[in-house]
């Protein structure tokens, strides 16, 4: 898990510093001594620790072992660093840019096609009423075209995500979880 303990100190010191800087190392032990740090605002952690969900995320009884919690708290700043580190890693940047390179143009295209369709239907009904084949007019073709493009976009997105993102994201997920777990385990 992760928490925000001690983060503001570190941020004040140098937002760009990662765990490698001496300052980052100094901060964490400082907070180890502060047992019940009250400033705790992470919802996942909160949900786990404060007991208003009686079970934890996996459906197993929530771990109510104070020493483990204390340990997590003290290492919480480290977990936050892990996320910053992963965010700056080339692998993550690659996954994110693949996602964005597909999604941003995709949203732009289907949204303007839809808005264009709606606006045309309201401002140019004459054009939309123009017959094409038999009783089928431009409006009908445009409407069915919206259905068709929706199916195509869905297929393209699913394919892109499966081929270009899934594997890299899964690797990153394991790496990130290993890193956070390593932090937690090594603290004892």
């Amino acid at each position: 898990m992760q928490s925000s303990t001690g983060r503001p100190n570190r941020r004040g010191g140098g937002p760009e510093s990662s765990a490698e800087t001496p300052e980052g190392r100094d901060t964490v032990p400082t907070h180890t001594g502060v047992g019940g740090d009250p400033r705790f605002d992470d919802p996942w952690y909160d949900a786990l620790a404060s007991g208003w969900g009686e079970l934890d995320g996996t459906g197993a009884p929530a771990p109510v072992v104070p020493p483990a919690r204390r340990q997590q708290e003290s290492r919480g700043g480290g977990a936050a660093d892990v996320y910053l580190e992963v965010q700056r890693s080339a692998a993550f940047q690659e996954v994110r840019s693949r996602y964005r390179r597909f999604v941003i143009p995709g949203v732009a295209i289907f949204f303007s096609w839809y808005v264009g369709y709606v606006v045309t239907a309201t401002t140019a009904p004459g054009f939309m009423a123009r017959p094409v084949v038999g009783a089928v007019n431009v409006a009908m073709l445009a409407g069915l075209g919206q259905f068709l493009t929706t199916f195509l976009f869905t297929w393209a997105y699913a394919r892109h995500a499966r081929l270009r993102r899934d594997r890299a994201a899964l690797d990153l997920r394991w790496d990130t979880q290993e890193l956070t777990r390593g932090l937690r385990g090594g603290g004892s």
Partner: protein
Amino acid sequence: MTGNHQMLALVLFSAFVAVTLAITTWVSRHRQGSAEEFYAGGRLFSPMENGFAIAGDYMSAASFLGISGLIALFGYDGLLYSVGFLVAWLVVLFLVAELVRNCGRFTLADVVASRMRERPVRIAAGTSSVTVSVLYLVAQMVGAGSLVALLLGGTSEAAQSWTVIAVGALMVIYVSLGGMRATTWIQIVKAVLLMGGAITLTVLVLVRFHGDFDQLLRTAAERSGHGDAFLAPGLRYGGDLTSRFDFISLGLALVLGTAGLPHILSRFYTVPTARAARRSVVWSIGLIGGFYLMTIVLGFGAAAIVGPQAVRGSNAAGNTAVPLLALDLGGGADSTGGTVLFAIVAAIAFATILAVVAGITLASSASVAHDLYASLRRPRAKPRSEVAVARTAAVGIGVVAIALGLLARDLNVAFLVGLAFAVAASANLPVLLYSLFWGGFTTRGAVWSVYGGLIPSVVLVLLSPVVSGSPESLFPGVDFQYFPLQNPGLVSIPLGFLAGWLGTVTSAEEPDEAKHAETEVRSLTGAGAV
């Protein structure tokens, strides 16, 4: 309507109720009472199951009865609804489904609150989620009422009221006893029934016209009395400038609203991974798209076969077009086929309403218990109480929905759903997108964006012709109508985005870089997802 109709429909519907109650009992055998189980069904559904359940949650009475009715009455303008309802799923698929699955636990507020100060954000997001759910519930209740009016052959107020109350009571039983697992299975059963019913009717309509879609359109246009204008946009929304803007407003609300609907968002948590969430959305887009294509045939079919006059005579808003179509397709009011088909369609529509109502109630009780109660409760409340609160909240929401459903009886169901979508798009979508994609977003921005969308959209509805000032409004006697549009989306959606931006740039709080990194990494990789 003869007694046969009623009997058969009641028998079929009772069978559905019995089956769903059996499911509820069966899935709650090994109930542990955990929040995980109650809100998310243990997160162990397969993408296909969840895809059917999403489709079941989404294809409401508004779709089955409302859209077909609008097409039967207004031709092409009704079809614009189904396009909006479908294209909206691209927003969900591209921007929301996977990321929300990775970042949250049970509700919309989980995603936002992970980066922000928790309490104010949870209260804001919980409030807006409950508001959207209640509006959506009212639409379903109205659908139930008008269906019963048709089934019992008159507008007996007592019968309608009792139906609405019975629907409310059943949904409370499903939700509070069965939680998400029972609700999901009910959605799946209902989605299969609904698709089956729609396919049967579509095939029958097409057979009637010998597979000639062109002939179907021609007959519908002729029968409607509007000629070719029936097949082009403008009959309902083409009048003056106001109604055109109204239509653009509706279109925006439909396409942006789905991604903010609490009961849709909560469905993504019932599958184990983001990949499974994506695959369930792909399944549901296939099902929903196919279904809306069929509603086009059903709507024009109702116009061509039943005729807009008869549809309007039965229910002024067009909500009963499909059952009437079924009656005619089966062979007419006095034939066995007509009776059977009518009864089946009525029972499916009932089942649809029940299932959707259960889904929304569950989502809103999650918002009440997980977001509002957890933030507002006394600090020393008993630890086991959250699920109990959710069960109680389900009852309360049921009562509110019943009361409003009785009040709003004469409004078109699809139109009411349009309002719910407008509120969802204004209050929930901006905050969701900002917190997923904007590094500089702050707590104040989140709170402002929720209220900045929620308050304008609700106030504009109250000041709109829907509530007062016109013969069709809720309170025709009084006039406090100051806003010309029926749907507030055109104004309130940009306001929601604007308020979020404004709140962020004016806030003294420095955006937390590390928490944004966490949200971004988690949302795209699934690290740390529950």
